[in-house]
């Protein structure tokens, strides 16, 4: 009885089944490459990928690339988050602004951000600016619309209570609306950060001197599948860490919501 209930507990624990899933993929990967049925050019062995990662790390390339990519993501996303917050709140709380801008934003949102790359390169060349702007374009409209929705769903009674307690415009915004939407805003940022991270790789595939995406496209040219694997895994790991960071922030700042 006891063992079955502790098994059930283990199955519910996210730190048990998750690693099991990852380990099984690693195991299958190892078995396939050990069996020799697939050309190592297509499927490098886990030790080979580990070696490539170690080489890139010791050569300093891995860190330089990661920093370059992270920097672009953070610049573009910070710009997007900072501008989306006031605009989303304005649209969510003022029906006129909402009616004016929602169709426009809804339209642009459906234009794939990578389709802006040619335009950005024509306007701003091959430097950092077009990459940062691509991340901005790819996340700003989603951030804004999600924040707008959060504001629209602030319960009417909470606003009316503040009014009957002597509250007015701006204090109600900062002391009722802002704390109420904080969990949803953080979650919107978390979700859209994932597309920011996708977009930086796309931008670097097209044109860059360094960055994790750039490394992957160089590796392709020299048929270094092991380095491509390294790039993919590192990109995944950094994304996961960012996601976990947002989740921790969410838990910490919004204990009242659960």
């Amino acid at each position: 009885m006891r063992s079955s209930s502790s098994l059930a507990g283990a199955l519910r624990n996210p730190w048990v089944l998750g690693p099991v899933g990852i380990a099984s993929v690693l195991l299958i990967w190892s078995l396939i490459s050990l069996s020799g049925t697939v050309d190592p050019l297509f499927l490098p062995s886990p030790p080979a990928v580990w070696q490539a990662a170690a080489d890139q790390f010791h050569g300093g390339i891995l860190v330089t690339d990661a920093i370059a990519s992270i920097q672009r993501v953070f610049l573009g996303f910070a710009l997007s988050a900072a501008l989306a917050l006031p605009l989303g709140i304005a649209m969510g709380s003022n029906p006129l602004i909402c009616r004016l801008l929602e169709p426009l934003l809804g339209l642009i949102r459906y234009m794939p951000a990578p389709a802006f790359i040619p335009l950005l390169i024509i306007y701003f060349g091959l430097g950092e600016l077009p990459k940062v702007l691509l991340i901005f374009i790819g996340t700003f409209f989603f951030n804004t619309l999600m924040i707008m929705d959060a504001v629209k769903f602030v319960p009417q009674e909470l606003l009316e209570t503040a009014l009957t307690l002597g509250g007015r415009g701006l204090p109600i915004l900062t002391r009722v609306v802002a704390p109420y939407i904080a969990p949803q805003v953080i979650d919107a940022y978390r979700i859209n950060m994932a597309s920011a991270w996708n977009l930086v790789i796309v931008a670097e595939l097209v044109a860059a001197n360094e960055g994790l995406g750039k490394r992957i496209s160089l590796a392709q040219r020299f048929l270094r599948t092991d380095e491509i694997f390294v790039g993919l895994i590192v990109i995944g790991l950094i994304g996961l860490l960012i996601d976990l960071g947002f989740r921790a922030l969410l838990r910490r700042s919004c204990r009242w919501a659960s």
Partner: protein
Amino acid sequence: MHLSVNGVSKTFGDGRHAKLVLDDISFSIKSGEFVALVGSSGSGKSTVMRLIAGLERPSAGVIALDGKSVDGPGSDRGMVFQKYSLYPWMTAAQNVAFGMSLQGLPRALVRERTAYFLEVVGLQDAARRLPKELSGGMQQRVAIARALAADPKVVLLDEPFGALDLQIRETMQEFLYQLWQRSGITALLITHDLEEALLLAQRVHIMAPRPGRIVRTVEADLDRSNLAHLRVSPPFLELREELVTTLRNLDAAAI
């Protein structure tokens, strides 16, 4: 303090979809009175309250507080909602303090008055707890303390105990009655529960639906020294029975 509702009507929508929800409502409340509006759902009683609170505008007629026409929400008319509507991220004390802090009262005064009103509602030990950690009855007491702490001239209670279990509701009715007696507040209670209205209010306005209007006003001149006894005393039961019949006939006529 004198709150007057004078010939107030309210229409929602316009043109062909216009719907008259309140028709020529008039009544008034003076300092220290406890008045109740009773009616079934659809009688527009909550709309009356929202009009007094300034959350809606009347289509016709005038609502005036101390001779000044009401033209929007303000801290002179406190409100307690059925669903408590506490701020979930604030502790009980922060909720109570919120109105005073919005009004810019000095911090020391806010702290002192918060402690005082938490004690008034018997929740001094729950000061640091979040709303989700409090029972429904406790949450509603915090909401009442919050409304009182903002120092309103009249407290508007919109079905304040409607979401509570029957037993807790009776305790809360006694609590509210004693609070009214001790603190000399002026209260307007909206309820669908005739017994609750008769038990607590000195004057009860009975509303009928479609369109919402006051059909009868009762001066409930009863001995309230012991509410538990009053609930089962013959004069109370007689009055209640008579008014229940009135309400039932109204509903039958409306259907």
